[in-house]
């Protein structure tokens, strides 16, 4: 019998725990050409801002070994266009939508949360904290536990009680548990781990940075071990806080690794760029992985890696 893949996200029962990560599913229409969006656990939107945003100039992407650097710069239509056009379309297709929000001030985050709370059909809010704080010399909110906590407190305070708030954290910190702790104290309902790592590529032919924005966020399988470590540490510190695990998930085996580390949901990101039907494929592969280890429910393996080692551990397959 196939394992029960369902997951609970606040009030919503998700048919499965494989989500499309923020910024990797477009507005949903792009993805819908290749997968049934109603069968994706939930779609996390591109980070929505208060106003339309052009993002950064091209080149915005650089391929690196098993990774991708991007400095797209949150290009998007703004919350009005999102609510008028993208969200209704996704809901009409039966998708569950987690709305990722981004702002440059704490007020902007809170305002977005309030707007979304007035809207039907928002399953959860994911707070993208990897944004420059206009009131703190452009320092990213996610890098400072206190600032991150302030954003979460403001968002939680402006969000309808029945919409869960997830804080998306950056791994580019010395102590991710400290940031997670501040967010939990501020009332976050869950955590999304992890955002991209800041990286850079230089083209020897031109002797200049490849990206117009110079630095970019590194994603893809190259960062998966970092994601596993972050999920593990946060799970160890806050075993009761649900975690959306993301970072380089390419296969069902990768998804299982994050579940074992303590994530209760998985978001597939960069792999969607490589394989547009990745969400449905990873789900199928994860079902097979769970069947192979005899698990009845995906929820049963969450955090299992924190247990003691089995006596006769054969080592990972090669």
């Amino acid at each position, binding site marked *: 019998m196939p394992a029960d893949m369902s997951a609970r996200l606040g009030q919503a029962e998700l048919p499965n725990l494989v989500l499309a990560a923020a*910024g*990797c*599913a*477009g507005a949903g229409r*792009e*993805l819908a*050409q*290749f997968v049934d969006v109603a069968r994706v656990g939930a779609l996390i939107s591109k980070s929505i801002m208060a*106003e*339309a*945003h*052009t*993002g*950064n*100039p*091209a*080149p*915005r*992407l650089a*391929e690196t*070994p*098993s*990774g*991708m650097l*991007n400095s*797209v710069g949150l*290009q*998007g*239509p*703004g919350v*009005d*266009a999102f609510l*008028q056009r993208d969200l209704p379309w996704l809901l009409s297709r039966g998708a569950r939508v987690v709305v990722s929000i981004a702002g440059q001030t704490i007020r902007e985050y809170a305002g977005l949360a309030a707007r979304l709370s007035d809207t039907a059909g928002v399953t959860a809010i994911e707070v993208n904290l990897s944004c420059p704080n206009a009131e703190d010399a452009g320092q990213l909110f996610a890098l400072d536990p206190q600032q991150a906590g302030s954003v979460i407190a403001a968002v939680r305070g402006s969000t309808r009680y029945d919409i869960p708030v997830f804080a998306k954290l950056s791994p580019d910190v010395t102590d991710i548990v400290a940031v997670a702790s501040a967010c939990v104290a501020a009332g976050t309902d869950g955590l999304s781990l992890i955002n991209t790592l800041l990286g850079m590529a230089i083209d020897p032919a031109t002797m200049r940075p490849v990206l*117009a924005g110079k630095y970019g966020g590194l994603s*893809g*399988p190259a960062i998966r071990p970092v994601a596993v470590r972050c999920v593990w540490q946060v799970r160890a510190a806050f075993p009761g806080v649900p975690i959306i695990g993301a970072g380089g998930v390419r296969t069902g085996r990768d998804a299982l690794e994050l579940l074992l580390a303590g994530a209760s949901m998985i978001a597939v990101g*960069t*792999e*969607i*760029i*490589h*394989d*547009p*039907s990745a969400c449905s494929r990873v789900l199928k592969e994860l079902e097979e992985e769970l069947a192979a280890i005899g698990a009845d429910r995906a929820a049963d393996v969450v955090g299992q890696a924190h247990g003691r080692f089995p006596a006769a551990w054969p080592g990972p397959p090669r």
Partner: protein
Amino acid sequence: MPVQIRGTVLTVRRVDAYHALTLVAPAIATRFRPGQFITIAVGGPESSMLGRRAFAVHDVRPDHGGTVEFVFEARGPGTRWLAGLRARDTLDTVGPLGRPFPIPRDPSSCLLLGVGYGSAPLFALAARLRERGCSADYLLGAQSADRVFGALTARRNGRSAAVATTDGSFGARGPVTGLMEQIIREARTDVIYACAPVPVLREVTAIAGRYDIPVQASVDVPMACGTGVCMGCVLPVTGTDGITRIVRSCVDGPVFRGDLIRWDDMGTIPFDALGAPGWNPARSPESRYAG
């Protein structure tokens, strides 16, 4: 509507400085319209190369249920891997993608301009144009003779075919744009279809503008997904409403009206683009973003 399939390699053959790869891909062949492209995942299932490689479709044929051919230059790890494939290998292929070339409603005199292997999509276009009673004059260019793609086909199928190479090893010496005005006058060109590097497209658009001839330009900007999710292949394009937007080449193009591309602002965010820093939405009647 594009599809994702596992295409089977029929042949990989060398064509002068390039390679042509033919895939059995019936679902893509039947949906294809000239100007569209496909993307391919390179390096096999454990590949460290995450970006899909995008290729304009050169030709589709009905044999084996439907085949798709594309032309490429093996110059990076991904394309070198493709060049090393053999018959019966399979490829994760998505297509057809992007907006095709618009076809004139009435019989028109069309100039088809291609530089390097960029000329590959022009031949399927010419076949489609002929069905509409349009004539095709070819103007092909490249660095050298071995980098001119399809000159023989152009000669056989076109009303006329001119070639220009930088080193003068084939046809006239100099850039393709050097021959453009003469052809426009002699052929009484009504519309230009161009597939070339950005600086050439910009020049082509400028010359065509002097003769008031519309240009359909297929831009070649690097893509990673081809489906519109990654937002990598953007360029500033003015809409018919006069508003500049940062649009994705893969879904809003790759074919654009040449006069609507902000050639001088490629690789920048123009200050007047919708959503640019300092752009004031309060002055605009409503949110008119169409990206």
